[in-house]
């Protein structure tokens, strides 16, 4: 089978759905049908790339030369397919969930919402399949713009303020990335993503290397939520919950960490990272972010904000794994991209279900809710245990690899950070579970039952996925095999 054009179709299919979504704004069922249809097609297209990705093949499609010697390239390598599977797979679940949430919450402007969502997914898959940095930047900026209408969806003062903050962070980041790309291009003459890096033997002064790296880090670090560039994320929780779930736990923030790994593994390469001590910069920032974000999570009473801080901490696990510069560490880091996605999306789905069903946003009001929403809270418990790294959930697997990667590199401190952070995770999730199960609920809970199946089915499926991946990381989609082959391609370039 000729797979050459599949990556292009995978990017375009949700974009193609946008006009249909806009045209059927008066018929909600038809409109949502287009979303689901595009989601399913997109997922199948990405899955079609899986066998070749597992064999380590790279499907490359040069679209056009957008600037002299700088083509627009889509490249479905193993890492790209890995990320695309997660994003497109979870989009289907999120679409079902969105239907339940948006209708249950009587949200306005749902057409704009579903259309922007579709554009976001096109951008995300575009990011996954970008063959060079310029293509990456184009989709990265597209993602920024497409997310904006979702962040300000409520059009309240708070929402608009969050939107401004979001834009000022992400647009500045985009500019730093452009500057970094321009400097890299003028030094190396290429912007292609090559496992092991593109700088090769170029003679680079120490300060120059650090400056370029910091520019890159500023560029991708905002979406990856690395401190001190993180504060847009808690504000962006003003968005509807499905947005927080898919974009602010999966697509947008994972594009950020995906970018970090692209920069570390495919632009600089492990050798150069070590030579100039760039990995230490990354490690220090990630370590601080993990601890501080976990501590800040304690202070949040709003459930979504607590989850946001948890996300910031968990994203830095991935960054930390990349900074370890060991193969095992990178495997852990890459697997955490997918595993954190299933866990965190579960938690956000739960938060949304509670909000729509019981109109509760704050943790302090959540006494006894497990009685009315047993399935939701069961899923919540699974997700939070996974994030704390308790076996047999998938969070344990990726953490295990992260820790062994650190030990392989002879580093103790990262392991200590991981352990402390695990305890802190337990610390800020346990009170929620305790309240939900063991405190007596107020009279306002009477008459309420579980949320709509549109929400409960997706959130329970992702919880089950978290368990299944914990038992066997290779169960579906060979996530473990893919992570291994990506890591090995970076550390043993041809």
């Amino acid at each position, binding site marked *: 089978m000729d797979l050459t054009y599949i990556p292009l179709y995978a990017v375009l299919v949700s974009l193609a759905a946008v006009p249909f979504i806009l045209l059927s704004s008066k018929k909600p069922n038809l409109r949502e049908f287009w979303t689901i249809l595009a989601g399913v097609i997109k997922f199948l297209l990405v899955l079609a790339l899986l066998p070749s990705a597992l064999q380590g093949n790279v499907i490359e499609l040069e679209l056009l*030369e957008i*600037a002299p010697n700088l083509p627009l390239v889509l490249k479905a390598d193993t890492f790209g397919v890995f990320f695309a599977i997660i994003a497109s797979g979870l989009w289907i679940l999120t679409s079902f969930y969105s239907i339940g949430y948006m209708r249950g919450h009587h949200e306005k402007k749902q057409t704009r919402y579903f259309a922007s969502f579709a554009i976001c997914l096109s951008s995300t898959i575009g990011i996954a399949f970008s063959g060079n940095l310029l293509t990456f*930047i184009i989709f990265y900026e597209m993602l920024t713009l497409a997310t904006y209408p979702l962040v300000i969806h409520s059009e*309240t*003062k708070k929402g608009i303020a969050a939107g401004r903050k979001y834009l000022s962070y992400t647009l500045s980041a985009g500019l730093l990335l452009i*500057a970094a790309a*321009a400097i890299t291009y003028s030094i190396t003459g290429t912007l292609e993503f090559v496992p092991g890096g593109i700088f090769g033997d170029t003679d680079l002064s120490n300060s120059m290397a650090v400056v370029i790296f910091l520019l890159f880090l500023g560029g991708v670090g905002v979406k990856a939520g690395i401190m001190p560039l993180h504060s847009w994320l808690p504000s962006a929780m003003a968005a509807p919950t499905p947005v927080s779930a898919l974009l602010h736990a999966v697509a947008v923030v994972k594009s950020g960490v995906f970018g970090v790994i692209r920069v570390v593994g495919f632009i600089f390469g492990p050798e150069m990272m070590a030579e100039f001590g760039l990995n230490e910069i990354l490690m220090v920032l990630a370590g601080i972010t993990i601890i501080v974000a976990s501590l800040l999570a304690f202070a949040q009473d709003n459930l979504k904000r607590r989850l946001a801080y948890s996300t910031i901490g968990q994203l830095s696990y991935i960054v930390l794994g990349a900074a370890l510069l060991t193969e095992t560490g990178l495997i852990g880091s890459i697997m955490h991209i997918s595993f954190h996605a299933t866990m965190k999306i579960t938690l956000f789905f739960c938060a949304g279900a509670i909000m729509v069903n019981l109109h509760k946003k704050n943790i302090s009001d959540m006494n006894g809710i497990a009685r009315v929403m047993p399935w939701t809270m069961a899923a919540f418990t699974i997700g939070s245990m996974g994030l704390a790294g308790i076996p047999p959930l998938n969070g344990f697997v990726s953490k295990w690899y992260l820790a062994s990667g650190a030990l392989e590199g002879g580093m103790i401190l990262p392991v200590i950070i991981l352990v402390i952070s695990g305890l802190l995770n337990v610390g800020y999730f346990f009170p929620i579970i305790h309240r939900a199960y063991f405190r007596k609920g107020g009279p306002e809970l009477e008459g309420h039952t579980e949320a709509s199946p549109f929400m409960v089915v997706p959130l329970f499926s992702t919880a089950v996925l978290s368990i299944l991946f914990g038992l066997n990381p290779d169960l579906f989609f060979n996530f473990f095999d893919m992570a291994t082959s990506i890591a090995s391609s970076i550390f043993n370039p041809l």
Partner: protein
Amino acid sequence: MIGSEIPALIPVTYILFAILIPVIGLWKREITWHLSLLGTGTATFFSAWGFMHLIQTGETIRYFFGGWAPPIGIEFVYDGLAAFIVLVINAIAFLVLIHSKEISKVEFPGKKLAYYTVSMLLMLGFNGMVLTGDLFNLYVFLEISSLSSYALIAIGEKRAPYAAFRYLIIGTVGGSLYLLGVGFLYTVTGTLNIIDMHVMLPQVIGHSSVIAALILMIIGVGVKAALFPLHGWLPDSYTFASSTSSALIAPIGTKVAAYILFRVVLFLFGVELIDHQLPVTTIIGIFAGIGILYGSIMAIAQSEMKKMLAYSSVSQIGYIIMGLSLANPFGFIGAVLHILNHAMMKALLFLVSGSIRLKEGHSLITKFDNSYRKKYPWTMAAFTTAAISMVGLPPLAGFFSKWYLALGTIDNSNWLLLAVILISSLLNAVYFFRILEKIYLNNPDTESTEETEVVERDEVGFTMMFPMAVMAIGLLLVGIFNAYIVNVIFNMFPAGF
């Protein structure tokens, strides 16, 4: 072969129509608009033809007027750069004049005859400036275009004549300085032909009057280009002039002046020659950088859309001049590409402001609200495209000129100017997203009136929508296919690149 006559045909077309419009217009006043379209359309056609011809043959056309060979006669030099600029300005003028049909009925009723005649003269001046190979002839065309633009600016709001008078004073000083510089050069070299003088200059470069001439010419043309700090005339002129005049002069006028700077600095003198005497390019670069930031910050401070766009022009012209100051291939590509991009973006933005003025009677940003989104969906879509391109987000055209300029600053290790490009992009984002927020979102301060108030669609007519749509789509196409344009620009480099 008509191909070799193109350089003469373009200005002759404008002369012809500058005569035809008043003659026929006196008899049938309502067709002046059609005649002006025919004029600019014909000129655009010739420019496009000539441009294609030039790409195919790759030969510069030197057209000697009356068969008198230079340096005795006057010649027009139709090289890649001139052909490109001529095509850009004529096409933009054509589109802007299409848009002017409705505007002319409201903003200058009864003055259509004079207006369209003068606009033909304006275009004659601009085309002549670009094409001529003779420094004194250039001054003549400069004055033709300047006098026409004073007149066009004066046709506008109440305060327009005052703004035009101010421009007249400053502009005349600028023109005189340029002429003085030309005189100095003539006394030393004995020629006025650019190509001829370029050959002679290395022998007389040590002469103090040559240096004086260079400085005078840069300042003189700098006034016309609104290079910071010589931009004082610009904001008021663009704001108070009629919407069509702003849309006509803003994208074209300063670009042509910037082009003259290119001719003087890169083609007449050559960078190596002058940088041995004076760090001219460095100084220009500093002023361009300050101008970029100053223009952007002032644009943020404005509450009137046209004034905001005017300050934005001061900033954007800085990009073009910055490309010149970098004096390397990337900088040159970025600048030339930005001439095209900014001409399209700024023309489009001024047309949008004109459309809003026509419909709403004002263009005060503070009064914008989200009913515009429903009333003028396509106009607002065009505005959004231009805004995103101005901010410089890929894959729209604005990104790529900035990309090449950034590469140019890196080539020179000029980190300061790189930072200027980045910061000004952010400032652009501030003043454009401020408007987008107002157009697309509910005002959270007012009580939610949504659903209660039904807003009828009230989109502008075809003659206004068509030029805006062409430019908006053009921004996307130029962005995606900019490699083709850049490959053409590769053939425009001055000697020594």
